[in-house]
Protein backbone atom coordinates (compact mmCIF):
# COMPACT_ATOMS: atom_id res chain seq x y z
CA UNK A 1 0.00 0.00 0.00
CA UNK A 2 1.40 3.39 -0.89
CA UNK A 3 1.57 5.62 2.15
CA UNK A 4 3.00 8.70 0.49
CA UNK A 5 2.75 9.46 -3.22
CA UNK A 6 4.81 12.27 -4.67
CA UNK A 7 3.99 13.07 -8.30
CA UNK A 8 5.85 15.58 -10.43
CA UNK A 9 6.74 17.63 -7.36
CA UNK A 10 8.55 20.86 -8.08
CA UNK A 11 9.29 23.46 -5.45
CA UNK A 12 10.63 26.92 -6.14
CA UNK A 13 11.75 29.22 -3.35
CA UNK A 14 11.25 32.98 -3.87
CA UNK A 15 9.57 32.65 -7.29
CA UNK A 16 9.75 35.74 -9.48
CA UNK A 17 12.57 37.57 -7.67
CA UNK A 18 16.34 37.35 -8.21
CA UNK A 19 16.73 34.91 -5.31
CA UNK A 20 14.54 32.38 -7.13
CA UNK A 21 15.85 28.86 -6.49
CA UNK A 22 14.47 25.60 -7.78
CA UNK A 23 14.84 23.32 -4.76
CA UNK A 24 13.01 20.29 -6.17
CA UNK A 25 12.42 19.38 -9.78
CA UNK A 26 9.82 16.92 -10.96
CA UNK A 27 10.18 14.40 -8.13
CA UNK A 28 8.37 11.07 -8.47
CA UNK A 29 8.49 8.95 -5.34
CA UNK A 30 6.24 6.44 -3.63
CA UNK A 31 6.80 5.51 0.00
CA UNK A 32 5.06 2.30 1.06
CA UNK A 33 3.21 1.59 4.27
CA UNK A 34 5.50 0.36 7.04
CA UNK A 35 8.79 0.67 5.20
CA UNK A 36 12.01 2.28 6.38
CA UNK A 37 13.28 4.51 3.62
CA UNK A 38 16.40 6.68 3.67
CA UNK A 39 16.43 9.99 1.84
CA UNK A 40 20.08 10.63 1.09
CA UNK A 41 21.79 13.61 -0.50
CA UNK A 42 24.46 16.24 0.05
CA UNK A 43 23.71 19.58 1.69
CA UNK A 44 21.43 21.60 -0.55
CA UNK A 45 20.16 18.57 -2.49
CA UNK A 46 16.55 19.17 -1.43
CA UNK A 47 16.15 16.51 1.28
CA UNK A 48 14.67 18.83 3.86
CA UNK A 49 12.49 20.64 1.32
CA UNK A 50 11.06 17.29 0.26
CA UNK A 51 10.53 16.23 3.88
CA UNK A 52 8.62 19.40 4.63
CA UNK A 53 6.21 18.62 1.82
CA UNK A 54 5.45 15.27 3.38
CA UNK A 55 3.76 16.83 6.37
CA UNK A 56 2.42 19.88 4.63
CA UNK A 57 4.80 22.49 6.06
CA UNK A 58 5.57 23.39 2.46
CA UNK A 59 3.18 23.12 -0.45
CA UNK A 60 4.21 22.19 -3.98
CA UNK A 61 4.86 24.88 -6.60
CA UNK A 62 3.82 22.22 -9.12
CA UNK A 63 2.84 18.57 -8.92
CA UNK A 64 1.14 16.91 -6.02
CA UNK A 65 1.81 15.08 -2.76
CA UNK A 66 -0.69 12.63 -1.29
CA UNK A 67 -0.31 11.29 2.23
CA UNK A 68 -2.42 8.27 3.16
CA UNK A 69 -4.45 8.91 0.05
CA UNK A 70 -5.23 12.56 0.65
CA UNK A 71 -3.81 15.63 -1.05
CA UNK A 72 -1.77 17.82 1.31
CA UNK A 73 -3.23 21.00 -0.19
CA UNK A 74 -6.65 19.96 1.13
CA UNK A 75 -7.17 22.47 3.96
CA UNK A 76 -9.56 20.23 5.87
CA UNK A 77 -6.97 17.47 5.94
CA UNK A 78 -4.14 19.67 7.23
CA UNK A 79 -4.85 19.27 10.98
CA UNK A 80 -5.09 15.54 10.66
CA UNK A 81 -1.98 15.42 8.46
CA UNK A 82 0.13 17.06 11.15
CA UNK A 83 -1.01 14.42 13.60
CA UNK A 84 -0.36 11.55 11.23
CA UNK A 85 3.09 12.63 10.10
CA UNK A 86 5.63 13.40 12.83
CA UNK A 87 8.67 15.41 11.81
CA UNK A 88 11.80 15.37 13.97
CA UNK A 89 13.97 18.31 12.95
CA UNK A 90 17.75 18.33 13.08
CA UNK A 91 19.04 18.87 16.62
CA UNK A 92 15.49 18.53 18.02
CA UNK A 93 16.73 18.99 21.59
CA UNK A 94 17.05 22.71 20.83
CA UNK A 95 13.26 22.85 20.87
CA UNK A 96 12.95 21.47 24.39
CA UNK A 97 11.57 24.19 26.64
CA UNK A 98 9.79 22.54 29.58
CA UNK A 99 11.13 22.31 33.13
CA UNK A 100 10.74 18.52 33.27
CA UNK A 101 11.05 15.68 30.80
CA UNK A 102 7.41 14.72 31.41
CA UNK A 103 6.12 18.20 30.61
CA UNK A 104 8.09 18.30 27.42
CA UNK A 105 6.92 14.96 26.09
CA UNK A 106 3.33 15.64 27.23
CA UNK A 107 3.13 18.92 25.33
CA UNK A 108 2.19 17.34 21.99
CA UNK A 109 -0.25 14.74 23.32
CA UNK A 110 -2.04 17.41 25.41
CA UNK A 111 -2.46 19.54 22.34
CA UNK A 112 -4.02 16.56 20.62
CA UNK A 113 -6.81 16.92 23.19
CA UNK A 114 -6.13 13.66 25.04
CA UNK A 115 -7.14 13.42 28.70
CA UNK A 116 -4.47 13.36 31.38
CA UNK A 117 -4.71 9.59 31.96
CA UNK A 118 -4.02 8.93 28.29
CA UNK A 119 -1.27 11.54 28.22
CA UNK A 120 0.39 9.92 31.25
CA UNK A 121 0.19 6.54 29.64
CA UNK A 122 1.59 7.76 26.34
CA UNK A 123 4.56 9.46 28.00
CA UNK A 124 5.46 6.28 29.89
CA UNK A 125 5.04 4.04 26.85
CA UNK A 126 7.09 6.32 24.68
CA UNK A 127 9.96 6.53 27.15
CA UNK A 128 10.06 2.74 27.23
CA UNK A 129 10.03 2.60 23.43
CA UNK A 130 13.27 4.54 23.14
CA UNK A 131 14.86 2.74 26.08
CA UNK A 132 14.73 5.49 28.68
CA UNK A 133 13.88 4.67 32.33
CA UNK A 134 10.51 5.89 33.61
CA UNK A 135 12.09 7.84 36.50
CA UNK A 136 13.64 10.19 34.02
CA UNK A 137 10.29 11.94 33.52
CA UNK A 138 10.75 14.06 36.62
CA UNK A 139 14.23 15.22 35.67
CA UNK A 140 15.19 18.62 34.39
CA UNK A 141 16.08 18.10 30.70
CA UNK A 142 19.13 20.33 31.08
CA UNK A 143 20.78 17.78 33.33
CA UNK A 144 20.67 14.98 30.74
CA UNK A 145 23.46 13.89 28.41
CA UNK A 146 23.29 14.77 24.72
CA UNK A 147 22.15 11.31 23.66
CA UNK A 148 19.42 11.12 26.29
CA UNK A 149 18.22 14.62 25.51
CA UNK A 150 17.96 13.74 21.83
CA UNK A 151 15.85 10.70 22.75
CA UNK A 152 13.58 12.84 24.93
CA UNK A 153 13.08 15.24 22.04
CA UNK A 154 12.22 12.36 19.71
CA UNK A 155 9.78 11.05 22.36
CA UNK A 156 7.92 14.35 22.11
CA UNK A 157 7.06 13.46 18.52
CA UNK A 158 6.58 9.70 19.02
CA UNK A 159 4.14 10.30 21.90
CA UNK A 160 1.68 11.75 19.39
CA UNK A 161 1.63 8.32 17.76
CA UNK A 162 2.34 9.38 14.20
CA UNK A 163 1.79 6.85 11.44
CA UNK A 164 4.70 8.29 9.54
CA UNK A 165 7.90 9.41 11.24
CA UNK A 166 10.31 11.68 9.39
CA UNK A 167 13.70 12.23 11.02
CA UNK A 168 16.29 14.72 9.85
CA UNK A 169 19.77 13.43 10.76
CA UNK A 170 18.75 12.07 14.18
CA UNK A 171 22.30 10.94 14.93
CA UNK A 172 24.18 14.15 14.10
CA UNK A 173 26.62 15.22 16.81
CA UNK A 174 26.11 12.14 18.94
CA UNK A 175 28.66 9.57 20.05
CA UNK A 176 28.50 6.34 18.01
CA UNK A 177 26.74 4.27 20.70
CA UNK A 178 24.03 6.89 21.24
CA UNK A 179 23.54 7.21 17.50
CA UNK A 180 23.23 3.44 17.18
CA UNK A 181 20.78 3.25 20.08
CA UNK A 182 18.44 5.87 18.62
CA UNK A 183 18.33 4.25 15.21
CA UNK A 184 17.94 0.77 16.66
CA UNK A 185 14.96 1.82 18.74
CA UNK A 186 13.35 3.59 15.79
CA UNK A 187 13.85 0.45 13.71
CA UNK A 188 12.18 -1.61 16.45
CA UNK A 189 9.24 0.76 16.66
CA UNK A 190 8.90 0.61 12.90
CA UNK A 191 8.84 -3.17 12.76
CA UNK A 192 6.66 -3.66 15.85
CA UNK A 193 4.09 -0.94 15.27
CA UNK A 194 4.21 -0.90 11.51
CA UNK A 195 4.88 2.83 11.23
CA UNK A 196 6.58 4.23 8.17
CA UNK A 197 9.99 5.79 8.77
CA UNK A 198 11.72 8.29 6.51
CA UNK A 199 15.33 8.88 7.54
CA UNK A 200 17.02 11.94 6.09
CA UNK A 201 20.77 11.49 6.14
CA UNK A 202 24.05 11.97 4.37
CA UNK A 203 25.57 9.15 6.33
CA UNK A 204 25.08 6.06 4.19
CA UNK A 205 26.53 3.72 6.83
CA UNK A 206 23.27 4.26 8.75
CA UNK A 207 21.16 3.72 5.65
CA UNK A 208 23.06 0.46 5.01
CA UNK A 209 22.12 -0.96 8.41
CA UNK A 210 18.57 0.30 8.84
CA UNK A 211 16.86 1.20 5.57
CA UNK A 212 14.78 -1.09 3.32
CA UNK A 213 15.09 1.34 0.45
CA UNK A 214 17.20 4.39 -0.34
CA UNK A 215 16.37 7.44 -2.45
CA UNK A 216 19.24 9.65 -3.57
CA UNK A 217 18.66 13.35 -4.25
CA UNK A 218 21.06 15.60 -6.11
CA UNK A 219 20.49 19.28 -6.81
CA UNK A 220 16.76 18.91 -6.44
CA UNK A 221 16.43 15.84 -8.64
CA UNK A 222 15.91 12.22 -7.75
CA UNK A 223 19.02 10.41 -9.02
CA UNK A 224 18.17 6.95 -7.88
CA UNK A 225 15.69 5.03 -5.77
CA UNK A 226 15.61 1.35 -4.97
CA UNK A 227 16.50 -1.43 -2.56
CA UNK A 228 19.28 -0.42 -0.16
CA UNK A 229 21.71 -2.99 -1.58
CA UNK A 230 21.20 -1.86 -5.16
CA UNK A 231 21.44 1.86 -4.53
CA UNK A 232 24.44 1.68 -2.23
CA UNK A 233 26.48 -0.35 -4.70
CA UNK A 234 26.05 2.31 -7.39
CA UNK A 235 29.14 4.14 -6.18
CA UNK A 236 29.33 6.34 -9.28
CA UNK A 237 25.86 7.73 -8.65
CA UNK A 238 26.63 8.21 -4.97
CA UNK A 239 29.78 10.15 -5.81
CA UNK A 240 27.87 12.31 -8.25
CA UNK A 241 25.46 13.10 -5.44
CA UNK A 242 28.35 14.11 -3.17
CA UNK A 243 27.90 11.05 -0.95
CA UNK A 244 30.32 8.43 0.20
CA UNK A 245 29.53 4.73 -0.24
CA UNK A 246 29.61 2.68 2.97
CA UNK A 247 33.02 1.39 4.00
CA UNK A 248 32.08 -2.23 3.22
CA UNK A 249 31.02 -1.39 -0.35
CA UNK A 250 34.16 0.63 -0.98
CA UNK A 251 36.34 -2.14 0.42
CA UNK A 252 34.62 -4.80 -1.69
CA UNK A 253 35.08 -2.73 -4.84
CA UNK A 254 38.73 -2.04 -4.12
CA UNK A 255 39.29 -5.77 -3.53
CA UNK A 256 37.44 -6.54 -6.74
CA UNK A 257 39.82 -4.29 -8.68
CA UNK A 258 42.68 -6.27 -7.15
CA UNK A 259 41.14 -9.53 -8.28
CA UNK A 260 39.61 -10.59 -4.97
CA UNK A 261 35.93 -11.24 -5.48
CA UNK A 262 33.42 -11.48 -2.65
CA UNK A 263 30.41 -13.75 -3.29
CA UNK A 264 27.94 -10.91 -2.63
CA UNK A 265 28.20 -7.18 -2.04
CA UNK A 266 28.49 -6.46 1.70
CA UNK A 267 26.74 -3.30 2.92
CA UNK A 268 27.80 -3.32 6.55
CA UNK A 269 31.08 -4.03 8.30
CA UNK A 270 29.50 -7.11 9.90
CA UNK A 271 28.56 -8.52 6.48
CA UNK A 272 32.04 -7.78 5.19
CA UNK A 273 33.53 -9.61 8.16
CA UNK A 274 31.30 -12.64 7.53
CA UNK A 275 32.11 -12.80 3.81
CA UNK A 276 35.83 -12.20 4.24
CA UNK A 277 36.07 -14.75 7.02
CA UNK A 278 34.43 -17.32 4.78
CA UNK A 279 36.79 -16.49 1.94
CA UNK A 280 39.90 -16.60 4.13
CA UNK A 281 38.81 -19.96 5.60
CA UNK A 282 38.19 -21.54 2.19
CA UNK A 283 41.47 -20.34 0.72
CA UNK A 284 43.05 -22.01 3.71
CA UNK A 285 45.56 -19.27 4.38
CA UNK A 286 43.66 -17.80 7.29
CA UNK A 287 43.57 -20.82 9.53
CA UNK A 288 45.82 -19.91 12.40
CA UNK A 289 48.54 -17.31 12.29
CA UNK A 290 48.72 -15.26 9.15
CA UNK A 291 51.72 -13.04 9.41
Amino acid at each position, binding site marked *: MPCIEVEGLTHVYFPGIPLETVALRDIELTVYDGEFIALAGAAGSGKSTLAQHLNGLLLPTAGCVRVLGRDITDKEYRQQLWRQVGLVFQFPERQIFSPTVFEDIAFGPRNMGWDSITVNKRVKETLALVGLPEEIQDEDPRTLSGGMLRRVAICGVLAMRPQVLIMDEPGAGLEPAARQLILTSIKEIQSQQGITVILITHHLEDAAVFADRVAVLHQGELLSVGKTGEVLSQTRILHKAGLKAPFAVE*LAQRLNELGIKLPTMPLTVEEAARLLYGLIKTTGAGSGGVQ
Partner: protein
Amino acid sequence: MPGQSNLLIELQSVSYAYPGSQFPVLQDICLCVGRAEFISVIGPNGSGKSTLARIISGLLLPTGGRVLVDGMDTGTPKTRKDIRRRVGLVLQNPDNQLVAAVVEEDVAFGPENLCLPSAEVRRRVEDALNAVGLSQVRGRPPHMLSGGEKQRLAIAGLLALCPLCVVLDEPTSMLDPVGRQEVLQVLRHLSDSGTAVILITHHMDEAAGADRVWVLGKGGVLADDEPAAVFSRVKLLHELGLTSTSAGDLAYRLSERGLELPTGIVIMEDMIKYLCRVLK
Protein backbone atom coordinates in the same frame (compact mmCIF):
# COMPACT_ATOMS: atom_id res chain seq x y z
CA MET B 1 60.41 32.52 26.64
CA PRO B 2 57.67 32.25 24.06
CA GLY B 3 58.53 30.59 20.79
CA GLN B 4 61.51 28.66 22.09
CA SER B 5 60.66 25.06 22.79
CA ASN B 6 59.04 22.52 20.53
CA LEU B 7 56.21 22.34 23.00
CA LEU B 8 53.31 24.63 22.12
CA ILE B 9 50.62 23.86 24.67
CA GLU B 10 50.98 22.22 28.01
CA LEU B 11 48.18 21.21 30.37
CA GLN B 12 49.52 20.66 33.86
CA SER B 13 47.14 18.73 36.15
CA VAL B 14 44.19 20.67 34.79
CA SER B 15 40.82 20.26 36.47
CA TYR B 16 37.59 22.03 35.68
CA ALA B 17 34.21 22.14 37.38
CA TYR B 18 31.44 24.38 36.09
CA PRO B 19 30.34 27.07 38.54
CA GLY B 20 27.85 25.67 41.05
CA SER B 21 28.68 22.06 40.16
CA GLN B 22 30.22 19.67 42.66
CA PHE B 23 31.61 17.37 40.02
CA PRO B 24 34.59 18.26 37.92
CA VAL B 25 34.14 17.66 34.17
CA LEU B 26 37.87 17.25 33.83
CA GLN B 27 40.14 16.05 36.55
CA ASP B 28 43.88 16.21 36.77
CA ILE B 29 44.56 16.28 33.05
CA CYS B 30 48.12 16.33 31.80
CA LEU B 31 48.55 16.75 28.06
CA CYS B 32 50.84 18.50 25.66
CA VAL B 33 50.71 19.64 22.07
CA GLY B 34 53.78 20.07 19.92
CA ARG B 35 54.17 22.72 17.25
CA ALA B 36 52.39 21.79 14.01
CA GLU B 37 51.05 18.64 15.57
CA PHE B 38 47.65 17.32 14.40
CA ILE B 39 45.68 15.88 17.30
CA SER B 40 42.16 14.52 17.30
CA VAL B 41 40.07 14.26 20.43
CA ILE B 42 37.38 11.62 20.81
CA GLY B 43 35.16 10.75 23.76
CA PRO B 44 31.51 10.15 24.61
CA ASN B 45 29.02 13.01 24.95
CA GLY B 46 29.64 14.78 28.24
CA SER B 47 33.26 13.63 28.55
CA GLY B 48 34.51 17.21 28.58
CA LYS B 49 35.77 17.55 25.01
CA SER B 50 34.18 20.95 24.45
CA THR B 51 35.26 22.10 27.89
CA LEU B 52 38.80 21.05 27.04
CA ALA B 53 38.65 23.01 23.77
CA ARG B 54 37.59 26.13 25.67
CA ILE B 55 40.27 25.64 28.29
CA ILE B 56 43.00 25.25 25.69
CA SER B 57 41.87 28.36 23.86
CA GLY B 58 41.74 30.34 27.10
CA LEU B 59 37.97 30.95 27.06
CA LEU B 60 37.64 29.03 30.31
CA LEU B 61 40.21 29.07 33.06
CA PRO B 62 40.97 25.79 34.82
CA THR B 63 39.72 25.53 38.40
CA GLY B 64 42.82 23.50 39.20
CA GLY B 65 46.24 23.22 37.56
CA ARG B 66 47.39 25.48 34.74
CA VAL B 67 47.54 25.75 30.97
CA LEU B 68 50.61 27.09 29.23
CA VAL B 69 50.32 28.29 25.65
CA ASP B 70 53.64 29.09 24.06
CA GLY B 71 55.03 29.42 27.57
CA MET B 72 52.30 31.79 28.77
CA ASP B 73 49.80 30.92 31.51
CA THR B 74 46.18 31.33 30.34
CA GLY B 75 45.32 32.39 33.90
CA THR B 76 47.46 35.53 33.72
CA PRO B 77 45.23 38.46 32.70
CA LYS B 78 48.17 40.27 31.06
CA THR B 79 48.85 37.54 28.49
CA ARG B 80 45.23 36.73 27.69
CA LYS B 81 45.18 38.80 24.51
CA ASP B 82 48.39 37.21 23.25
CA ILE B 83 47.04 33.75 23.92
CA ARG B 84 43.82 34.39 22.02
CA ARG B 85 45.87 35.48 19.04
CA ARG B 86 47.85 32.25 19.17
CA VAL B 87 44.98 29.82 19.64
CA GLY B 88 41.77 30.04 17.62
CA LEU B 89 38.53 28.17 18.17
CA VAL B 90 36.09 26.96 15.48
CA LEU B 91 32.62 25.88 16.59
CA GLN B 92 30.20 23.23 15.34
CA ASN B 93 27.88 25.58 13.52
CA PRO B 94 29.78 28.01 11.26
CA ASP B 95 26.78 30.36 11.14
CA ASN B 96 27.48 31.16 14.78
CA GLN B 97 30.82 32.71 14.03
CA LEU B 98 30.50 34.43 10.68
CA VAL B 99 29.99 38.16 11.18
CA ALA B 100 30.29 40.08 7.91
CA ALA B 101 28.15 40.37 4.78
CA VAL B 102 30.97 39.56 2.36
CA VAL B 103 33.42 36.65 2.55
CA GLU B 104 36.63 38.70 2.47
CA GLU B 105 35.28 41.21 4.98
CA ASP B 106 34.54 38.37 7.33
CA VAL B 107 38.15 37.22 7.14
CA ALA B 108 39.36 40.82 7.60
CA PHE B 109 37.35 41.27 10.80
CA GLY B 110 40.04 39.78 13.06
CA PRO B 111 43.15 41.50 11.65
CA GLU B 112 41.28 44.82 11.45
CA ASN B 113 40.53 44.55 15.14
CA LEU B 114 44.24 44.14 15.73
CA CYS B 115 44.61 47.60 14.12
CA LEU B 116 47.07 46.28 11.53
CA PRO B 117 47.95 48.50 8.56
CA SER B 118 45.54 47.91 5.70
CA ALA B 119 48.20 46.46 3.37
CA GLU B 120 48.96 43.86 6.03
CA VAL B 121 45.25 43.12 6.52
CA ARG B 122 44.89 42.63 2.79
CA ARG B 123 47.87 40.30 2.66
CA ARG B 124 46.58 38.20 5.54
CA VAL B 125 43.09 37.96 4.04
CA GLU B 126 44.65 36.89 0.76
CA ASP B 127 46.78 34.20 2.41
CA ALA B 128 43.96 32.92 4.59
CA LEU B 129 41.51 32.62 1.68
CA ASN B 130 44.15 30.83 -0.39
CA ALA B 131 44.92 28.42 2.44
CA VAL B 132 41.29 27.27 2.67
CA GLY B 133 40.64 27.48 -1.08
CA LEU B 134 38.00 30.20 -1.00
CA SER B 135 39.69 32.91 -3.10
CA GLN B 136 37.15 32.34 -5.87
CA VAL B 137 34.16 33.25 -3.70
CA ARG B 138 35.71 36.22 -1.87
CA GLY B 139 33.05 38.67 -3.01
CA ARG B 140 30.07 36.52 -2.09
CA PRO B 141 27.86 36.83 0.94
CA PRO B 142 28.63 34.01 3.43
CA HIS B 143 25.02 32.78 3.51
CA MET B 144 25.31 31.82 -0.16
CA LEU B 145 28.11 29.36 0.64
CA SER B 146 27.71 25.64 1.24
CA GLY B 147 28.22 24.22 4.74
CA GLY B 148 31.76 23.09 3.96
CA GLU B 149 32.62 26.47 2.48
CA LYS B 150 31.20 28.28 5.51
CA GLN B 151 33.22 26.13 7.86
CA ARG B 152 36.36 26.79 5.79
CA LEU B 153 35.53 30.49 5.96
CA ALA B 154 35.36 30.29 9.75
CA ILE B 155 38.81 28.67 9.68
CA ALA B 156 40.10 31.41 7.35
CA GLY B 157 38.90 34.01 9.85
CA LEU B 158 41.20 32.44 12.41
CA LEU B 159 44.12 32.00 10.03
CA ALA B 160 44.12 35.73 9.35
CA LEU B 161 45.20 36.13 12.97
CA CYS B 162 48.21 33.88 12.26
CA PRO B 163 47.50 31.48 15.11
CA LEU B 164 49.94 28.81 16.25
CA CYS B 165 47.10 26.43 16.98
CA VAL B 166 43.54 25.95 15.72
CA VAL B 167 41.05 24.14 17.94
CA LEU B 168 37.94 22.81 16.21
CA ASP B 169 34.91 21.59 18.15
CA GLU B 170 33.11 19.09 15.88
CA PRO B 171 33.51 21.28 12.81
CA THR B 172 32.17 18.59 10.48
CA SER B 173 29.12 17.32 12.32
CA MET B 174 26.75 19.43 10.24
CA LEU B 175 28.52 18.83 6.95
CA ASP B 176 27.91 16.35 4.16
CA PRO B 177 30.73 13.99 3.08
CA VAL B 178 32.09 16.43 0.49
CA GLY B 179 32.12 19.36 2.91
CA ARG B 180 33.70 17.14 5.51
CA GLN B 181 36.47 16.11 3.12
CA GLU B 182 37.13 19.75 2.20
CA VAL B 183 37.55 20.75 5.83
CA LEU B 184 39.80 17.79 6.63
CA GLN B 185 42.08 18.55 3.69
CA VAL B 186 42.45 22.12 4.89
CA LEU B 187 43.33 20.89 8.38
CA ARG B 188 45.96 18.49 7.07
CA HIS B 189 47.44 21.28 4.98
CA LEU B 190 47.52 23.60 8.02
CA SER B 191 49.37 21.12 10.11
CA ASP B 192 51.81 20.40 7.27
CA SER B 193 52.54 24.10 6.97
CA GLY B 194 53.24 24.61 10.65
CA THR B 195 49.98 25.27 12.52
CA ALA B 196 48.97 22.85 15.25
CA VAL B 197 45.45 21.43 14.88
CA ILE B 198 43.23 20.02 17.63
CA LEU B 199 40.16 18.39 16.12
CA ILE B 200 37.25 17.21 18.25
CA THR B 201 35.12 14.69 16.38
CA HIS B 202 32.65 11.85 16.71
CA HIS B 203 33.78 10.35 13.41
CA MET B 204 36.48 7.81 14.02
CA ASP B 205 37.55 7.56 10.38
CA GLU B 206 38.17 11.29 10.55
CA ALA B 207 40.09 11.05 13.83
CA ALA B 208 42.36 8.37 12.38
CA GLY B 209 43.87 10.93 9.99
CA ALA B 210 45.59 12.76 12.87
CA ASP B 211 49.14 12.32 14.15
CA ARG B 212 47.87 11.57 17.63
CA VAL B 213 44.53 10.78 19.30
CA TRP B 214 43.36 11.73 22.78
CA VAL B 215 40.54 9.66 24.24
CA LEU B 216 38.57 11.46 26.93
CA GLY B 217 36.24 9.71 29.35
CA LYS B 218 35.39 9.43 33.01
CA GLY B 219 36.80 12.90 33.61
CA GLY B 220 40.26 12.04 32.43
CA VAL B 221 42.46 11.13 29.49
CA LEU B 222 42.14 7.39 28.86
CA ALA B 223 44.53 7.21 25.95
CA ASP B 224 47.03 9.50 24.26
CA ASP B 225 48.68 7.67 21.39
CA GLU B 226 49.03 7.19 17.64
CA PRO B 227 45.78 6.39 15.79
CA ALA B 228 46.90 2.82 15.05
CA ALA B 229 47.40 2.13 18.74
CA VAL B 230 44.24 3.89 19.95
CA PHE B 231 41.89 2.35 17.40
CA SER B 232 43.25 -1.12 18.12
CA ARG B 233 41.94 -0.82 21.67
CA VAL B 234 38.44 -1.74 20.57
CA LYS B 235 37.28 -2.96 23.99
CA LEU B 236 38.15 0.35 25.65
CA LEU B 237 36.38 2.26 22.89
CA HIS B 238 33.26 0.09 23.18
CA GLU B 239 33.18 0.58 26.95
CA LEU B 240 33.00 4.31 26.33
CA GLY B 241 30.23 4.05 23.74
CA LEU B 242 32.72 4.73 20.97
CA THR B 243 33.79 2.55 18.09
CA SER B 244 36.98 1.93 16.22
CA THR B 245 37.37 3.12 12.63
CA SER B 246 35.50 1.09 10.01
CA ALA B 247 38.67 -0.81 9.14
CA GLY B 248 39.52 -1.26 12.80
CA ASP B 249 36.02 -2.54 13.44
CA LEU B 250 36.36 -5.04 10.59
CA ALA B 251 39.72 -6.21 11.95
CA TYR B 252 38.11 -6.65 15.37
CA ARG B 253 35.21 -8.65 13.95
CA LEU B 254 37.60 -10.90 12.02
CA SER B 255 39.72 -11.52 15.08
CA GLU B 256 36.57 -12.27 17.13
CA ARG B 257 35.94 -15.04 14.62
CA GLY B 258 39.29 -16.51 15.45
CA LEU B 259 41.63 -15.07 12.84
CA GLU B 260 44.96 -13.75 13.98
CA LEU B 261 45.47 -10.34 12.45
CA PRO B 262 48.52 -8.16 12.82
CA THR B 263 47.72 -5.33 15.25
CA GLY B 264 47.27 -1.76 14.14
CA ILE B 265 45.01 -2.24 11.11
CA VAL B 266 42.81 0.84 11.42
CA ILE B 267 42.64 2.30 7.92
CA MET B 268 41.31 0.89 4.65
CA GLU B 269 44.73 0.75 2.95
CA ASP B 270 46.21 -1.45 5.68
CA MET B 271 43.16 -3.71 5.62
CA ILE B 272 43.50 -4.14 1.86
CA LYS B 273 47.21 -4.96 2.19
CA TYR B 274 46.43 -7.58 4.80
CA LEU B 275 43.61 -9.12 2.77
CA CYS B 276 45.75 -9.24 -0.35
CA ARG B 277 48.41 -11.09 1.58
CA VAL B 278 46.08 -13.77 2.94
CA LEU B 279 43.83 -14.11 -0.09
CA LYS B 280 46.28 -14.07 -2.97
